């Protein structure tokens, strides 16, 4: 995974698989380079025994093979930057995943194409309710599928290619306004180490 947005897409698909009706994605960037990504759903949740080993690469819900790399890779990526990954889950209630990254760390992947990831998530699960909010010291980008559905009505699916293109462009404009340059080159060498 070369971008954090790809992790986001990958992990949020677990919420879809868990039968979530509502998924909330928030990204919070503070002035010190810390990025907190939280993905909360109201899916079926996980039993404590499964939760305890969910970031083990040899734990998976899939039946075709015994390897599941999405969460282990995300945990590794977060920890490599000095951050962390935590997951709270209750059976029948839902799951909240929180990952923290130090974006100024050399090993922190770029955010990547967040609008593309969010638009594809919506396109892939057009009936799920999704709220997205990315807050930075410069501003915020936000989108709620409930708002879009109010306009589109029941006849037009959020999976339509034209709607997908609109969502992508709408979010891209907002993300560009709120973007913060947190590449390692943007800070002094001393801070990186």
């Amino acid at each position, binding site marked *: 995974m070369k971008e954090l947005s790809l992790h986001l897409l990958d992990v949020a698909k677990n919420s879809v698989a868990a039968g979530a009706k509502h998924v909330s994605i928030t990204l919070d960037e503070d002035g010190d380079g810390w990025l907190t990504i939280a993905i909360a759903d109201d899916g079926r949740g996980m039993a404590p025994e499964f939760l305890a080993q969910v970031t083990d690469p040899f734990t998976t819900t899939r039946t075709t093979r015994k390897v599941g790399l999405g969460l282990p890779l995300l945990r590794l990526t977060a920890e490599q930057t000095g951050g962390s990954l935590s997951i709270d889950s209750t059976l029948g209630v839902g799951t909240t995943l929180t990952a923290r990254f130090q974006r100024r760390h050399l090993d922190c992947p770029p955010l990547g194409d967040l609008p*593309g990831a969010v638009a594809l998530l919506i396109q*892939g699960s057009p009936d799920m309710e999704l709220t997205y909010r990315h807050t930075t010291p410069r501003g915020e980008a936000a989108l709620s599928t409930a708002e879009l559905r109010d306009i589109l009505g029941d006849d037009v699916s959020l999976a339509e290619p034209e709607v997908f293109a609109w969502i992508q462009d709408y979010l891209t404009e907002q993300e560009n306004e709120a973007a913060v340059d947190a590449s390692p080159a943007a800070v002094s060498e001393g801070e990186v180490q």
Partner: protein
Amino acid sequence: MKSLEELKAIREKMKRQMDLREDNESNIRVVVGMATCGIAAGARPVMTAFLDEINRRGLTNVTVSQTGCIGVCRLEPVAEVFVPGEEKVTYVRLRPEMVPAIVEQHLVNHSVVQDYTIGAAE
């Protein structure tokens, strides 16, 4: 600036197209594998390329959807094309630049792009 007003215009346009589509029994389905393996191999730009190309050409008889792991992780990104009455075609090791040819030749002209299929890769 993109506005919610534009979305209203899209709605009106789509509703007109929907009326046509309901009568259309030749609906083609494109399914892209978007599990961890697919995403890591580059499925997202491929999926976006399909949506962009179909939108650009205004194809109303094509549905694009996502699925999990199709089972051949080493050949990802993978997309399956279902044309009613024809055998399923599996395209493998896709890159976004390969997508316009698949849309034009297969989805529009019903001619499989053999070089990109799983049969050619194996």
